[in-house]
């Protein structure tokens, strides 16, 4: 166990998994010589060679498409998309091939590839370095989606993704890459996909969140501590979703606030709310509330804080549901 930043935990997972399985290969723009623009892949090229930590041409669809072929040749490629919004060129490969190829072979072939990327805002960056594209991924059949919110989960979920026989998309909260530190188990550490985590216990209301919104939810719960015992459920894996944990928490508290950084309409929060509308109707003592980014292009950074769901917005929503 050592205290690592979130991005160090990811780097740790890489070192562990590449040593463990020599079919694991890392590829992407600037992952090799530079060790990644956030240094998530630092040291891999030196340790495992340029053939297992590959600087690719600047071509996201090419990267993901080549990864499909690498799977066919027996590799387990882990692709980095340099930023969230720069993953969009690979959506075509993802939807038409990555999510469909196992099915196409009637289950005869595995496509154990991983696509990981830093995601989310708050980093005072130029345009298109701030997106939260998880809904595009979660809606796509045949892939899994995980989003860690702590260094330990960042390591464990990435390890699970690498070992999974199916394609897994991992979105990493870049806002916390270097600012969040936490205890991370040394050596092999796997957090099973499909399991939510109760980040904070409570009986009065549930805040459902994932990734960079978990600390916001926790801060809101803390702020509300005098008024109510607010549970924070960290979804961790968006697909497959731990529906049981969601229903159990909301079944207990009867009140749900869902937090998502992405634009509101048809975001992943809608899926969570829909499940509650379908399966928790009788438990709900107040309407579900979504606290989300707005249905607008992610703004210039001087006003990005007004766009991002804030602790204040979450607190207000929890109060609203408590007062209902």
């Amino acid at each position, binding site marked *: 166990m050592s205290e690592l930043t979130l991005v160090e935990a990811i780097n740790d997972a890489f070192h562990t998994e590449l040593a463990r399985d020599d079919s694991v290969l890392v590829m992407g723009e600037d992952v090799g010589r530079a060790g990644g623009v956030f240094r998530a892949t630092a040291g891999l090229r030196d340790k495992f060679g340029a053939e297992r930590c590959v600087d690719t041409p600047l071509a996201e*669809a090419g990267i993901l*498409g*080549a990864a499909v*072929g690498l799977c066919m040749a027996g590799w387990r*490629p882990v692709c980095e998309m340099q930023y969230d919004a720069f993953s969009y*060129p690979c959506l075509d*490969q993802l939807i038409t091939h990555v999510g469909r190829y196992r099915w196409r072979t009637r289950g005869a072939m595995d496509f154990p590839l991983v696509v990981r990327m830093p995601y989310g805002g708050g980093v005072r960056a130029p345009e298109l370095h701030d997106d939260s594209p998880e809904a595009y991924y979660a809606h796509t059949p045949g892939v899994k989606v995980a989003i860690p919110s702590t260094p330990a989960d960042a390591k464990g979920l990435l390890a699970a993704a690498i070992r999974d026989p199916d394609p897994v998309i991992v979105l990493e909260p870049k806002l916390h890459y270097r600012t969040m530190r936490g205890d991370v188990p040394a050596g092999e550490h796997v957090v099973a996909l499909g399991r939510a985590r109760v980040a904070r216990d409570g009986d009065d209301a549930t805040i459902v969140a994932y990734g960079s919104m978990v600390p916001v939810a926790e801060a809101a719960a803390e702020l509300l501590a005098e008024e109510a015992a607010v549970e924070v459920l960290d979804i961790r894996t968006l697909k497959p979703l731990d529906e049981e944990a969601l229903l159990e928490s909301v079944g207990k508290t009867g009140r749900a606030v869902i937090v998502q950084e992405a634009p509101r309409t048809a975001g992943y929060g809608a899926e969570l709310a829909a499940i509650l509308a379908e399966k928790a109707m009788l438990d709900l003592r107040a309407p579900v509330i979504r606290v989300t980014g707005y249905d607008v292009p992610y703004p210039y950074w001087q006003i990005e804080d007004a766009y991002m769901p804030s602790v204040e917005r979450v607190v207000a929503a929890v109060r609203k549901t408590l007062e209902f």
Partner: protein
Amino acid sequence: MAQTLRVPGSHDLRRVIGDGEAIPDGEVEGLEERDLLELYRSMVLLRTYDERSVVFHRQGRIGTYAIFWNHEAMQAGSAYALEREDWIFPSYRESAIGLLRGMPVSTVLSWWRGHPAGWWNPLDYNVASICVPIGTHVPHAAGLAWGKKLRGESSCAVAYFGDGATSEGSFHEGANFAGVMRAPLILFCNNNQWAISTPLSAQTAAETLADKAVGYGIPGVRVDGCDVLAVFEATRDAVARARAGEGPTFIEAVSYRTAPHATADDPRAYIDLERVEEEKRRECLGRYEAYLRRAGVLSDELAESTRAEAAEALRSGIAAAEEEPPADVGLVFEHAYAAPPASFAAELAELRELLGE
């Protein structure tokens, strides 16, 4: 040895088969009679498959079908230059290329029948799944070839795509990737000069498609796509380069689409029917048959028996496809994931109940 055909106003096209008159026949070093006849058998099988499929479609026995009449030389010639461990990445236009690797006729027919029996295990034949979205399999082939090389294996890969596909970003990214990685890949472009109704002139301003190769730092060659021997030879050269670690080759095989794009298409609105008739007279199987006869390799009996064999393969193929039991609806939920989520079982149970199963 291939001679070269000068097409006026265009670049050179490699060509082996003569015209029985002014242009003399050439020959390909290393090809024996056995090989010549094997190529013939392949072409006849593909031709028969194609012609029967159009009929099966008309009879409602298969669905929409992408016709490949006059593309047989490109497919058979290139595939024959490969070893069994080499990989083939077909588009819908090469849907039946697996037949040349021993895939049952019924499998391919089942694909066009929308029946799960048409979805094969690529590892069984080293033939990837049929790629429907244009050009998107080029990066797969690049990745596979590169991955094989990384593993120290000597196999290579061929990706088939059309003239239209060269306009897609995925073609570009895949070709560039392969160039950089010196992947053992053959980029085989079936230039039939049409992308549905769009003529080559509206597809690119490049003088030839082979011209694109230089932008990827790889050789580009042009062959007469209706000349099975020229296609074979060009592919054999490319395979040799790939195995020698010299990286990819782009082959532009020039032919002409003499049939509709697919059974659903009516080309009369956009195509010059006289040109089509002219191209039909030059079609690839007839040209090869004439060559073999001039070389004294093919007799009437052999031609007849080859055709009969192919016809029989199709007869039994469609019968086998039609004998497949109806697909179980449970397949809707299978194979999407290695371990399906729990919800699938409940959804299937509900569905079965509703269907009264």
